[in-house]
């Protein structure tokens, strides 16, 4: 063990710690993914605190009840068993009270360190409970990869083999940054083109804040397990965001009769144009719905209206990679100059057209004085206030505002709302 000379530290960019972390963990991403499946119980394999922290964070973020359970590994089971005992006991206790259509089992840092065989445990319980297992150690990846890994495992473990194909049926895979209403808006956009659409996962009717009939012990809405099982005949799989690109590739590998349409972002004019262009090409579609045309024209107008302010604005973005990329791209279209900090390493960092670093909010704070506006999660509030900067809250968590599930910033319509919101904040400042 050695202590570094603090003087040397200044020259290195690799800090030995996170100060005010921007990053959230893989098991948390997995939790959200399973909450987008109907009557599902996300089961986190770890000590009880991991699930408790996650539950509290998402409950406060969405202002809605969050279903989650834990295998509650303790100091004895942490050492002696391979995880199967705790997992089967957990499933037994869960099914005493509720009847889940699916249990989504995923690991944490501790159970990955001890090397538990979650596949084996799932197989042992096969007759009792339908399950999907995912390895999501929290010492690797982050929120986006935890979400994506879960979808990948749902695709490989749950979707039934088929060679049949329906060109009018599509599977759409959002990235973790999509708000519930954005999932619904994209489904509507696809349905407008006479497609039968399934989102995996589908948070649009589970965490959008609607007042349901009961406060569920299981996830309340989402895609049903039987619909997932029959997804194999989808003519196309549409992935939005680099973090979920692999999900589309995996689906295409399993069902080569399908088509994989990938988009890095859906914010701004260019991204929305690309989306419709590729889609119309795939559908050999000749007539464009008039509502799409109208919103495109509105976005053109909004770009002109907002460019006076945005063209002079210096904006600092700190978020999950796919979200930071989409935001920076949209702002750049109106002339905004951006700098981005992302929560974790991601392939999308190659696509950024502005300066991008992997960092924590301590580094964000250092860069903030030279900027006009900060776009980041709830933790940015203190920083923006301290440095007298305007703040737009995006990302997880957002404890401060209500209506998170209803925020719509994608395609032509959502991009209009986004650019206007940012501009109004800057003008106000």
């Amino acid at each position, binding site marked *: *063990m*050695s*202590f*570094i000379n*603090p003087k040397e*530290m200044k020259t290195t960019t690799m800090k*030995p*710690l*996170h*100060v005010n*972390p921007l*990053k*959230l*963990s893989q*098991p*948390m991403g997995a939790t959200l993914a399973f909450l987008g499946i109907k009557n599902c119980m996300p*089961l986190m394999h770890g*000590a*009880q*605190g*991991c699930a*408790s*922290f*996650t*539950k*509290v*964070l998402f409950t*406060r973020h969405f202002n809605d*009840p969050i279903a989650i*359970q*834990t*295998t*509650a*590994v*303790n*100091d004895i*089971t*942490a*050492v002696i068993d391979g995880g199967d005992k705790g997992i089967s*006991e*957990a*499933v*037994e*206790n*869960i099914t005493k*009270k509720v009847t889940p259509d699916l249990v989504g089992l995923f690991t*944490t*840092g*501790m159970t990955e*360190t*001890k090397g538990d065989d979650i596949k084996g445990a799932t197989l042992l319980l096969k007759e009792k409970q339908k399950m999907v297992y995912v390895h999501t*150690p*929290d*010492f*690797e990846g982050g929120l986006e990869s935890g979400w994506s890994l879960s979808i990948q495992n749902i695709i490989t473990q749950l979707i039934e083999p088929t060679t049949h194909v329906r060109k009018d049926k599509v599977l759409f895979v959002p990235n973790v940054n999509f708000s519930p209403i954005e999932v619904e808006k994209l489904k509507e956009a696809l349905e407008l083109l006479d497609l039968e659409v399934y989102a995996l996962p589908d948070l649009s009717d589970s965490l959008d804040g609607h*007042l349901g009939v*009961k*406060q569920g012990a299981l996830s309340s809405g989402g895609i049903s397990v039987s619909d997932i099982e029959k997804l194999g005949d989808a003519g196309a799989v549409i992935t939005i965001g680099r973090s979920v690109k692999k999900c589309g590739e995996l689906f295409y590998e399993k069902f080569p009769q399908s088509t994989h349409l990938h988009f890095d972002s859906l914010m701004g004019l260019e991204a929305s144009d690309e989306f419709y262009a590729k889609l119309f090409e795939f559908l050999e579609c000749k007539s464009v719905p008039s509502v799409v045309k109208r919103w495109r024209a509105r976005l053109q107008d909004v770009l002109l209206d907002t460019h006076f302010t945005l063209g002079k604005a210096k904006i600092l973005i700190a978020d999950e990679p796919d979200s930071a990329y989409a935001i920076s791209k949209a702002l750049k279209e109106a002339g905004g100059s951006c700098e981005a900090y992302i929560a974790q390493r991601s392939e999308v960092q190659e696509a950024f057209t502005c300066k991008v670093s992997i960092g924590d909010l301590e580094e964000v704070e250092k860069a903030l004085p030279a900027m006009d506006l900060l776009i980041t999660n709830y*933790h940015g509030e*203190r920083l923006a206030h301290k440095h007298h900067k305007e703040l737009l809250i995006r990302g997880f968590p957002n404890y401060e505002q209500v209506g998170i599930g209803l925020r719509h910033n994608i395609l032509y319509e959502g991009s209009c709302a986004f650019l206007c919101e940012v501009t109004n904040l800057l003008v106000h400042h």
Partner: protein
Amino acid sequence: MTMVNRKLIKDLLNESACSHNKTKKASCDKPKPGATSGGCAFEGAQISLFPYADAVHLVHGPDTCLGASWETRATLTSYEGENNTPLGYCTNVSTQDIIFGGDKKLSDALSYIVEHKKPKAIFVYETCVTAMIGDNIDFTCKTAEELFHIPIVPVHAPGFVGSKNLGSRLAGEAVLDALVGTREPEEIHPFGINLIGDYNVTGDMWQYKPLLERIGIKVVSSLSGDGRIEQIQTAHTAKLNVIVCAKSLVTLCRKMQERYNIPYVSVSFYGKRDTSNAIRSIVNAFGDAELIAKAETIIAEEEAKLETRLKLYHPMLKGKKAILNTGGNKSWSIASALQDIGIEVVATCVQKATEEDVAIASEYVPILFKAPGVDQPRLIDEHKVDILLAGGRSLYTAIKKRIAFVDVNQEKKVSYGAYGGLENLAIDVCAALSNPVFKLVGKQAPWDAA
């Protein structure tokens, strides 16, 4: 797992000062897989120590532990330097560290913190992963302490050892071992106390601390609301330990009694009666006639002032019926506060209360219930209840029954503590009772109405 001290944990779970341990250990049982939702030992340790704003709180582990939990509790401080309470420090243990050990990263992180933050102390929280890979946190902390000349305190409360409550106890042990008694104060006050277990959430402590000071009592140190490292180091010179609403730190108080001959009292500052009784318990423990007389004068003054202020709300609150569903000591302390503002408390939930709390609750409230899911809606109907006070999860019950709701758990934004806080509670209850939203959103849609 070299760092888990099984003997200490066993001792803490068998605390002789806990009344329930004479019969059974129900409240300290291990969590059940698939049937538990509470926080872990690490969270309990964090909650107990984070209010030391002049110390850096470094979590030695991967992301979930801190990434999901920093800046969530409104524990206020008057510290004028950089407030470390809401900040997040984490070694962000990676795959590399799992394989080769995280000691080097921890010592580098400590160097970075000392250089850039200049804290009065550093608490290092062990987590499940770093406990499992066997990092020698004690040695790293000790070496750093000798090098940097500030206390660097290891906190051994990894999540898997047990519940939040146990974590608070382990944090108390860490403070007792590493800090208490390590500094001598300039003078020893005859009526010096330590406040134990109040974390100053929403400024609760500030509702009553000025009153105590007016009476002539000096708060020597706090564990840990608005606390300071230098003060807790002198805690051994206090004459009395005052446990505020926290059974979890009773072990610490018992040990301080054995070690330093400091007696302790347990009090609550929720509501008028309890606040007055708390002040009386403290001054009676000193047995000084002048102090007791001064306390009575101030209690009379404050109660009279409060009554004048509460008159405004009496017409709206009088005769209203409430049900309470909250945890631990709050099952009775909030009930007593509600009674003080003229509300009839029909029932209170004791699902998460200790046997001692249940016994106290039964003196305040006629009906105690344990299964809120079933009992709550039934009791609301049977007794024509007007308002439900509970954690956010019960909001739906209130909406379905179309009665008012007040969140009395962590989500609350203002303090309900002591005399001043009781007025806040009255304001919030009145606002809820007069808000049309609970009835409106419970209404059927026009197409569903018969």
